[in-house]
């Protein structure tokens, strides 16, 4: 079974994002970028499926700037077999991403798409679901366990009330949650091997998808700074303070 893993290049999760002074977005100039952590989990899961003999080929896809090649290369060093970069410098909204991915799925015919539940930059949490809808495929979102069971895929989902297990017919779309696995990091021999692996260069036009944004960002602002607290001597003072503040 071929597995398609879409990945996104985002600001490194260790970096403290800064909003541009004019409030039009997050400042990305000279900021360390890395693979979205949920995408790393997706690659890891695909590699584990391959190690179990369930997956036969792992195709790593990214949609983004030229530098997203590096992100794909990280995926190839973790165990992906080949890559596809759909290159664009424009902002790509989830629906446009899902449409491009649908076109890639039509061309590649994978048996499974594993993607992160969301990217840590805009936290949209939409692409996987939209892709499943466009394809008319079953979806298992927020996966914390994936098991191939006969011709079905059992996906344990992290939902508000606890864990829900669904059985999906294949082909299917799965989005990964934090507790699915702990991604490996690349060894030196695998980094070297990844250099030889092929990355196909495409553009959104190759797939006939119009990626013009449908939304306009009005304003981006930093969260309000937390104000200094106050230490109180005892519970009684605390209660009276809270009453004065109208909190209780």
């Amino acid at each position, binding site marked *: 079974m071929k597995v398609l893993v879409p990945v996104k290049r985002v600001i490194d999760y260790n970096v403290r994002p800064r909003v541009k002074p004019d409030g039009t977005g997050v400042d990305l100039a000279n900021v360390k970028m*890395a693979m979205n952590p949920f995408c790393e989990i997706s690659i890891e899961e695909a590699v584990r499926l391959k190690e179990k003999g369930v997956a036969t080929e792992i195709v790593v896809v990214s949609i983004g700037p030229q530098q997203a*090649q*590096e992100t794909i*290369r*990280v995926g190839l*060093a973790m165990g992906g077999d080949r890559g596809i970069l759909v290159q664009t410098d424009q902002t790509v909204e989830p629906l446009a991403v899902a449409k491009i991915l649908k076109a890639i799925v039509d061309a590649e015919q994978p048996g499974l798409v594993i993607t992160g539940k969301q990217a840590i930059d805009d936290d949209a949490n939409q692409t996987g679901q939209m892709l499943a809808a466009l394809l008319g495929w079953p979806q298992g979102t927020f996966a914390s366990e994936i098991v191939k069971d006969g011709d079905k895929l059992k996906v344990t989902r992290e939902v508000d009330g606890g864990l829900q297990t669904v059985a999906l017919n294949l082909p299917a779309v799965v989005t990964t949650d934090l507790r699915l696995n702990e991604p490996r*990091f*690349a*060894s*030196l*021999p*695998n*980094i*070297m091997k*990844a*250099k030889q692996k092929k990355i196909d260069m495409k553009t959104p036009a190759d797939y006939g998808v119009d990626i013009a944004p449908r939304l306009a960002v009005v304003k981006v602002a930093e969260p309000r700074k937390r104000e200094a607290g106050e230490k109180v001597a005892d519970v009684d003072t605390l209660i009276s303070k809270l009453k004065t503040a109208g909190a209780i």
Partner: protein
Amino acid sequence: MHNVTAMSEEQAAIKDAVERTCAAFPAEYWRKVDETGEWPEAFTKAMAEGGWLGVAMPEEVGGAGLGLTEAAIVMQTVTRSGAGFSGASAIHLNIFGPKPLERFGTAEQKQVHLPKIISGEQKMCFAVTEPNSGLDTSSLETKAERTNSGYVINGRKIWTTGAQRADKILIIARTTPKDQCAKPYLGLSLFYTDFNRGQIDAKPIPKMGRKAVECNMLYIDGLEVPREDLIGEEGEGFKYLLQGLNPERVLFAVEAIGLGFAALERASQYAKERVVFGRPIGQNQGVAHPLARCWAELSAAELLSYKAAKLFDDGLDCGAEANAAKYLGAEAGFNACEASVLAHGGMGYAKEYDVERYMREAMIARIAPVSREMILNFISERVLGLPKSY
């Protein structure tokens, strides 16, 4: 950390992967091995499993076939992680130590040993320095005398790192008396052979820092070495050793620089958090400026180190740059560690804050593998054309 130009995609991937490998070994781990003196086995194993010991070894023996630049990125990332020299010295030898074997060994020697050195299965140590001949290698007294089947070695070596756990030894010994050689540095031969504990007695030397990675005095009494363990030609050993000197200087430089940056990070963090007289101490220029100056010194030394590495990788002479980088890197690294201890005030003296360990370890790079004075001698003679003083 940079190359002279921006890092390539591959170099960034290397740095990232080494950072992640080192992240599993936090400050507590290094504090503990520094106290117990236990070899950092888990760390050594993780680095071997990641393939990092083979960064500069050729691909046909299981290495990555990369250059000194990449090896330097690996080693700087190790010390920078807070592992310091406790981490770097545990693997340092594996990176360029086997170079004489790779360059001058027979095809069989290479195929038998190098893959095992890279995988960490074979643990090697390096025996060059002697109690009576430090930097004056041509005066070394250890002798290898011919026998029917090969050689027998007798003598003493000092500062051999990792001899307690080594199963192989790379050793240089005199095969022809100095007075019978045309030049003093001829008549020395290099062997890669079994570390036979029946004939080699290794005694650890209690020392200032880096307790986890032991250094030893070796007493070698009748070590029998088969002829096939000779590397290259008899009498040419010193020349083979020289090949590894410049890379080693660059690695020492970046290791000290990485540690200096680690110390600065700890000190700046502390200076931001520690409030005295109603404000963070880092707001006082008397605390801030020494740290800022160290950053500038480290960055300058780093540039020269990667320039030397690039020259080496391009096959050009890098002697002056490698020596100067080791001089500047070691000084900048130590200065940064010292400034960081001072910025911590009393807490800088407490083991809990780690910077005192960094400072003790940073001394290593000022002394080894060559003294500051010999570096300045080299630059005086070779670069400035001044008369030799010794």
